């Protein structure tokens, strides 16, 4: 079957809206791309379009939060986290306003739209903000759980919503506790710490490694902030090597977060898979993932280099 995460996001908002009348949703002329339109169809009086004016949308959301609402703000990741960064910083994060960002079309998977629309730095930007929770769901089930969890958190939350249609990897029963990484597969030699769309690549990589006699574990970091330090340090003791994998710049994302935990505390061998400090470009997402090394094969290669 499979489902786009943005579709799952819209459905989750609709469901949340039915349960909680404090939830309002805002968009910047992309309701049919971010799929907030799904919420708007059912809760028309709680949907606000601000036109193509992201900075104003973010500040308006802060105004709603100050009035007791729980606003979910959506647009493309680049124009929310990027263009409106300083509004998120000063009007939301600085005052711990209860605003949620469900920003879609993150990473290279925007594909054909090209580098101008591919947000490869949003996690880095959001990680800088004290009090910001960062959730990166890997499948439709996790996307819904992320939306529901965000509504329960008192303070700003960033949810990174990818565009492609993906199969469910997790199940309804899989725990989703913000700040607590999930072990998807146990192993002995290399631990692959992945997030978002790279979870499926990590699982494939583990299979490929097993065929070559290398035992690989896979951890799902659905939360980048607060990062699960205990899990990282535990894995650093259990495994000979750690490889991180993310659809984001290697600067400032999951790989950086893991490296910051390991620095000074562990001598485990360590490597990052991610976008190597360069911009994206147009192309089919699968072609881009190959060219930029966001593949199971690259994870396998990096793992073998370390062992």
């Amino acid at each position: 079957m499979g489902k786009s995460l943005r579709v799952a996001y819209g459905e989750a908002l609709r469901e949340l809206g039915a349960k909680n009348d404090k939830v309002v949703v805002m968009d910047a002329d992309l309701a049919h791309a971010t799929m907030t339109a799904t919420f708007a169809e059912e809760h028309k009086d709680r949907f606000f379009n601000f036109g193509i004016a992201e900075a104003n949308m973010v500040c308006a959301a802060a105004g709603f939060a100050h009035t007791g609402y729980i606003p979910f703000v959506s647009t493309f990741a680049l124009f929310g986290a990027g263009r409106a960064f300083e509004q998120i910083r000063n009007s939301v994060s600085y005052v711990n306003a209860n605003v949620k960002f469900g920003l879609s079309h993150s990473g290279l998977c925007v594909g054909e739209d090209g580098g101008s629309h591919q947000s490869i730095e949003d996690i880095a930007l959001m990680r800088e903000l004290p009090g910001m929770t960062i959730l990166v769901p890997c499948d439709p089930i996790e996307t819904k759980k992320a939306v529901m969890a965000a509504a329960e958190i008192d303070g700003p939350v960033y949810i990174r919503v990818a565009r492609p249609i993906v199969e469910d990897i997790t199940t309804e029963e899989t725990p989703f506790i913000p700040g607590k990484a999930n072990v998807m597969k146990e192993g002995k030699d290399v631990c692959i710490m992945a997030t978002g769309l790279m979870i499926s690549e990590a699982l494939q990589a583990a299979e490929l490694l097993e065929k070559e006699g290398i035992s690989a574990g896979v951890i799902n970091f659905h939360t980048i902030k607060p990062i699960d330090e205990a899990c990282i340090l535990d894995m650093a003791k259990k495994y000979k090597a750690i490889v991180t994998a993310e659809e984001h710049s290697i600067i400032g994302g999951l790989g950086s977060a893991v490296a910051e935990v390991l620095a000074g505390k562990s001598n485990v061998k360590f490597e990052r898979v991610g976008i190597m400090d360069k911009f994206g470009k147009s192309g089919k997402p699968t072609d881009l993932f190959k060219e930029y090394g966001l593949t199971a094969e690259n994870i396998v290669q990096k793992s073998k280099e370390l062992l």
Partner: protein
Amino acid sequence: MDEMNLTAKAQQIRADIIKMLYTCQSGHPGGSLSCVEMLMALYYRVAKVDPQNPQMEDRDRIVLSKGHACPALYAVLADKGYFPKEDLWNLRQIDSHLQGHPDMRKTPGVDVNTGSLGQGVSIAMGMALAAKHKKADYKVYAIVGDGEVQEGLVWEAAMAAAHYKLDNFVVMLDHNGLQIDGSNESVMSLGDVVDKFRAFGFECYKVDGHDLAAIEYALRAPVSGKPKFICCETHKGHGVSFMSDQAGWHGKAPNKEEYELAMKQLGGIN
């Protein structure tokens, strides 16, 4: 409070501002002195606020979007009894609840954090829209600086305010004509700023920004179905001869001689 008392009150607020900035040796005197009557018209005459209950659900919200003028806001809040007046002399110090720019989490009576220009007016617009959605009848007032309206965000907020027909939203412009690098005209002309707000869908008024009665009249003028804009013509540094209409007094504190002269001109009430 009658007009005579309010005039004396304005002098006292100005003296408090000067003393605050002299005491901490930093801050923004020019734009603080220019918006005193604008704040007073709200806090002493028009706005529904309760110093004993700063978080009152249906209070009017007052957002000093030109957050650097907060010494004026703090002096008014202290005078209204939101916090003890002695706190003013601890402005900008490490243990003070009076930050260099307004902080809603620290200072009783501050409704919104401001300081990054353009954001306050946009948040205020969001609060007004939220009030409409809640069917609450309070108003939201945003005081903006004239340099501030060079920020694109102000116009994004203005467009949305008209789109959502926010007749509970009032933008008050402290139009003293000066900004850090010089006059608005020389730095980045605002053109006819009243015409611009009118074109954006606001009901517009232009008043003497040091005439409390005139500001009050414009604030009370009824509007329906559209937001209100009040252009308050003011003088930067108003009340202190050597600061008046001087861009150089945007962001510096007076020295001892300047402080004493300013206090003398302001009647030395403190």
